[in-house]
């Protein structure tokens, strides 16, 4: 922006990094120096508070920040005010396409009382921004918009500016107001002082005060408004810089050669098979990692194809056809009990009716539309990487391990990639780029092939889920038992596991160890992080009810087993799969009780916010209240129509959503047409209604694609979902249903996540609508026409 752009001297970096930094606006430290002012510390007296443990934890899940991160408990780690009055804010919560930069700029503008256009937000760069773990798990709003971190820093700074303004103007603080980057007298508009005059070029030198006064939502002028994303014009005109567009002088191009089969080891690489090819620079081998470097991209592609590599035979993969039963029989297991009233078997024995069903959810992939890309410049003891990773500090720590460098000599700069929806190839391709760059001592760019992206990513979890419940004579649920099996291998690399993704593993690092544990210990604390606990039970743990429902007899047990493929978080990880099972099963119970599915849900829910989202969706959809299935009217065209409902208390308390789906099914073929999807969303106070709407609409249709077509498949040795013909994503041209999003604004409660709530309820709502239309129950995702036809026949 308008700030001086000088090379930072304190941060080790290559020239390319310095150039990129200059392009980004300025360096954090140079910014302070560039003003020409002394760094003066204010003594804010009463505003000083003891740094508590909470303030050192800026990450999404409460993990401590890296030791050399800008300290999250300091205001200066989050904001700086320049001599021109521009505000620079620093965040670890990235813009992945979900609109988080816009919402954070609104937050800063609002709390600090400066115009939106004067905010320059610096996103995720280990040389400048605090370690906030990963941008994931619907944690960005809870982490930065409630009272700590970015929100707390801004509120603390506003308080400090009011104090300074009071001294400067010699007017008591209670007669002053902060507006448009100035402190003004409430009664005399001529008495005012600009922030720049009060603090420009100086540090605040203040602890973030968790009790600093926040602006109430009733006074918001920037937050809560549908402000358009500042990056949109550049994206629409092809000028936006994605990581794919990063160019560093002298940059070479890489490609990788992955194993011939899952579990195969490298036997031999014949460099002479390619060394005479145009543009050839090097073949790079590190244990099972094989890559090539060339002068141009097309040359690297051709060299990678031509390279003669021999791999060992690999053991056969478990059969895809019988995989769900295979999961159930795997040993050892790691068992987790989320809730256990210890009377479930007894209650089921006394129930008037016992209902049982099993649900299946496949591995699914992130399948970014652009395959993952990174640029690395590793020279000697220093490395700079431009990466689409969701966690720059995690990437820095694990990349340092992989390269044998000191973490403080590695700089990771986030650059947006193609939408990731969780851990796609972003981390692994950053390792690829860095290994290749280290081997040639020059900057290297690599973008994975479509197949390398799809065949080796960390897939979203497969699940086999048994549900059992008992109904009393009046049709009320008296006990609910949930037992699930799900395979895991690797994960996000966090700070210590490069082997949690494929490149780190190939280069010699092991994934995080699978630690068997059976039987599961009884739950000591309540957590519904994976939505293993249905919304309809009491969630009684540690002497209190924490659940969203009323059923007292409850058990939720998970068995993790070892996966043949890498796994990791995919938008609404586990929560989506469990919710599909719970909501389908709730519908089966309502049908058995001959109750209306909405009324039946309301009857078993206690959480007011859940009641509200269910009622809101039902009302907007003009819900046809009656038991399912719908009495079949013989239609000339042989098409049956129906409606279904589904809902979730996301992670128990991190957002609430309900959906009504309306579908048509062609009875002869099983062909499904989804006509209308009405979704209600409660994410607490709404930062940007258009942004939330966009996220919810996208979540709904992505959920539809996952419910209807997406499934990772494999043969005896390899994943066979390797392109868009073998992995079925709904294209832009499918018959898009009418999508209606109802936002429930709750200004007076803490902000919750919003990116993963709507997607979570889709499969359940559609499956329930199919049942309503046809009387056939689909218990396996995806709902292909063949599966629907088979269910119709049975």
């Amino acid at each position, binding site marked *: 922006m308008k700030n001086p752009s000088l090379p930072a001297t304190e941060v080790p970096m290559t020239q390319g990094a310095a150039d990129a930094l200059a392009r980004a606006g300025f360096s954090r430290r140079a910014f302070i120096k560039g003003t020409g002012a002394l760094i003066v510390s204010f003594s804010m007296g009463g505003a000083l508070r003891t740094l508590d443990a909470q303030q050192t934890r800026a990450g999404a899940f409460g993990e401590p920040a890296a030791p050399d991160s800008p300290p999250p408990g300091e205001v200066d780690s989050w904001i700086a005010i320049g001599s021109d009055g521009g505000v620079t804010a620093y965040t670890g919560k990235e813009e992945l*396409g979900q609109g988080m930069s816009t919402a954070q700029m609104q937050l800063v503008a609002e709390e600090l009382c400066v115009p939106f256009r004067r905010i320059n937000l610096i996103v995720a760069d280990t040389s400048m921004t605090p370690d906030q773990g990963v941008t994931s798990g619907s944690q960005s709003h809870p982490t930065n918009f409630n009272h700590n971190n970015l929100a707390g820093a801004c509120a603390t700074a506003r308080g400090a500016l009011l104090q300074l303004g009071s001294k400067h103007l010699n007017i008591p603080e209670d007669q002053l107001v902060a507006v448009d980057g100035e402190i003004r007298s409430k009664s005399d508009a001529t008495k005012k002082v600009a922030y720049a005059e009060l603090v420009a070029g100086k540090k605040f030198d203040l602890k973030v005060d968790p009790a600093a006064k926040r602006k109430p939502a009733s006074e918001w002028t920037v937050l809560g408004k549908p402000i358009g994303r500042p990056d949109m014009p550049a994206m629409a005109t092809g000028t936006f*810089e994605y990581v794919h567009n990063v160019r560093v002088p002298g940059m070479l191009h890489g490609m990788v050669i992955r194993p011939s089969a899952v579990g195969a080891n490298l036997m031999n690489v014949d460099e002479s098979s390619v060394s005479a090819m145009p543009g050839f620079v090097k073949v790079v081998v590190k244990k099972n990692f094989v890559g090539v470097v060339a002068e141009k991209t097309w040359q690297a592609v051709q060299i990678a194809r031509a390279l003669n590599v021999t791999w060992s035979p690999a053991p056969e993969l478990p059969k895809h056809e019988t995989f769900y039963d295979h999961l159930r029989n795997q040993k050892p297991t790691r068992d987790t009990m989320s809730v256990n009233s210890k009377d479930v078997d007894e209650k089921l024995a006394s129930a008037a009716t016992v209902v049982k069903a099993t649900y299946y959810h496949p591995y699914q992939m992130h399948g970014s*539309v652009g395959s993952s890309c990174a640029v690395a410049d590793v020279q000697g003891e220093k490395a700079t990487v431009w990466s689409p990773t969701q966690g720059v500090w995690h990437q820095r720590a694990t990349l340092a391990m992989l390269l044998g460098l000191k973490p403080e000599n590695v700089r990771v700069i986030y650059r947006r990639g193609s939408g990731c929806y969780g851990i796609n190839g972003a981390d692994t391709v950053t390792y690829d780029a860095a290994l290749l760059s280290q081997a040639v001592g020059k900057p290297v760019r690599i973008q994975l092939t479509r197949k390398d992206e799809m065949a080796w990513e960390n897939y979203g979890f497969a699940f086999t889920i048994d549900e059992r419940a008992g109904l009393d004579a009046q049709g009320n649920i008296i006990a609910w038992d949930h037992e699930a099996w799900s395979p895991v291998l690797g994960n996000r690399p966090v700070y210590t596991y490069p082997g949690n993704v494929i490149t780190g593993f190939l280069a010699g690092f092991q994934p995080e160890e699978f630690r068997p544990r059976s039987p599961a210990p009884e739950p000591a604390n309540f957590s519904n992080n994976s939505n293993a606990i249905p919304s309809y039970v009491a969630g009684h743990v540690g002497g209190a009810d924490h659940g969203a429902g009323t059923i007292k007899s409850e058990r939720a047990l998970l068995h993790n087993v070892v996966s043949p493929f890498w796994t990791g978080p995919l938008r609404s990880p586990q929560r989506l799969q469990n919710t599909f099972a719970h909501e389908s099963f709730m519908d089966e119970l309502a049908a058995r009780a001959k109750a209306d599915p909405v009324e039946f849900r309301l009857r078993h829910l206690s959480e007011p916010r859940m009641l509200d989202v269910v009622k809101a969706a039902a009302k907007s959809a003009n819900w046809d209240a009656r038991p399912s299935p719908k009495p079949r009217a013989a239609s000339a065209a042989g098409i049956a129509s129906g409606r279904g409902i589904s809902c979730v208390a996301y992670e128990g308390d991190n957002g609430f959503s309900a959906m009504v789906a309306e579908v048509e099914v062609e009875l002869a073929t099983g062909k499904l047409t989804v006509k209308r999807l009405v979704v209600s969303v409660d994410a607490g106070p709404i930062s940007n209604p258009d942004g939330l709407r966009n996220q919810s609409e996208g979540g709904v249709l992505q959920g539809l694609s996952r419910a209807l077509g997406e499934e990772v498949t494999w043969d005896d040795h390899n994943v066979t979902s390797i392109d868009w013909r073998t992995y079925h994503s709904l294209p832009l041209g499918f018959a898009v249903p009418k999508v209606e999003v109802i936002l429930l604004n709750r200004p007076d409660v803490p902000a919750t996540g919003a990116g993963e709530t709507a997607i979570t309820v889709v499969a359940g709502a559609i499956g329930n609508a199919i049942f309503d239309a046809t009387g056939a129950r689909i218990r396996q995702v995806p709902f292909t026409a063949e599966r629907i036809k088979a269910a119709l026949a049975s």
Partner: protein
Amino acid sequence: MSSLSLKVNGQSHSVDVDPTTPLLYVLSDDLGLRGPKFGCGLGQCGACTVLVKGQAVRSCITAVESVQGVEIMTLEGLGTVDKPHPIQKAFIEEQAAQCGYCLNGVILTAKAFLDKNPKATEKEIQEGMSRVLCRCFTHTRMLRAIGRAQKEMAR
């Protein structure tokens, strides 16, 4: 390697490349353009789309030698931040993107389609976009933006 001449966004360029190189790599690497993007390399997703003589073409599977001397337009050539084409303007106004990676292919495919079918119905537009992929599933907004641009372009 051989010297080829290309006409991109109204400018002539001479590039020294392997003539079998996919056009996409020449546009991105040799000419430094950011619009066309590698998505699949198989012509399946549309992210690499460019207009060749007004036709939407997948540059990841188009050899550069086959488009010598003919007019090629990328997203940058369609309009600018200050002077966006009506389709680009409609996408900005409708906030019709999330990550935005697919926007290049979506906008240029829509441009070629609307030029040929200015009076297309909503359903026909949807069919016209059938081979383009958006994994953020911004579909409703994108189709709305194309409809909005269609009206604007008809004026």
